[in-house]
């Protein structure tokens, strides 16, 4: 993984995490910049994004403002927000936030990929993020909420070792500890890692 943690000009982290896998090609998580606002709005508004993501900025201008406020949280290492880059295009987003370094806790969200035919790209993006959070930042547990009817995502998180800790009529609240994730992360990497290089 390639890491450069702070850019004084943009006041945001300049983290870039990249894996190359022959089954996908290069998949990158690049720290968001204000210039990504239009791409983020497009991704959030595509397909069922509005249905499954927490309501957020509806316009590019609102998204730019939100990204400026994010910069403060990012500077304090409370939040890391990435765009997912694949095939020279911005195809998705992923974010960890409410990071409590002393307790090792964080929340996971904004995970969305659009217009990518290769199904493994989404998995690679999640694995990169988990490596960043659990191994690089040394956090120990992730919380997240998934709509019950988003069955593929629910199944993915359960396969990853996440446990349902609370349930509402239409939402499942998950907890994934680093130790519970190890078996699944190793399983995916057995399939993906022989051809992966960390750049």
């Amino acid at each position: 993984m390639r890491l450069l943690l702070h850019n004084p000009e943009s006041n945001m982290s300049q983290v870039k995490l990249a894996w190359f896998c022959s089954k996908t090609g290069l998949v990158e998580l690049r720290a968001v910049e204000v210039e990504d606002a239009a791409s983020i709005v497009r991704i959030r508004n595509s397909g069922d994004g509005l249905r499954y993501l927490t309501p957020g900025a509806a316009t590019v201008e609102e998204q730019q403002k939100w990204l400026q406020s994010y910069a403060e949280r990012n500077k304090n290492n409370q939040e890391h927000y990435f765009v997912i880059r694949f095939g020279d295009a911005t195809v998705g987003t992923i974010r960890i936030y409410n990071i409590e370094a002393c307790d090792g806790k964080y929340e996971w969200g904004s995970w969305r990929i659009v217009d990518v035919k290769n199904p493994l790209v989404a998995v690679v993006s999640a694995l990169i993020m988990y490596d960043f959070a659990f191994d690089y930042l040394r956090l120990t547990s992730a919380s997240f909420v998934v709509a019950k009817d988003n069955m593929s995502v629910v199944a993915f998180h359960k396969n990853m070792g996440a446990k349902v800790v609370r349930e509402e009529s239409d939402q499942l609240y998950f907890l994934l500890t680093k130790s519970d994730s190890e078996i699944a992360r190793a399983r995916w990497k057995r399939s993906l890692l022989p051809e992966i290089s960390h750049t």
Partner: protein
Amino acid sequence: MSELYIILNEVRTNKGQSSIPSITRELRLREDIGFESLDLAELTVRIEERFGVDVFSDGLVHTVGEIEEKISRAKS
């Protein structure tokens, strides 16, 4: 075919869907079996674990028949 049938249904039941009663070579993974991207990813890793076959070795697959061909080719 029967082992592939089991794997396909494992992925479906894993996400809370009922098993499909039978499969044919023409069945499309997304449109007919109802797999989304993450299901297809799970399917590929299960096939690799069971058959040692990388279904992405020369492009994406769309139907049961295409998976079968890749498995047969790898076995022969």
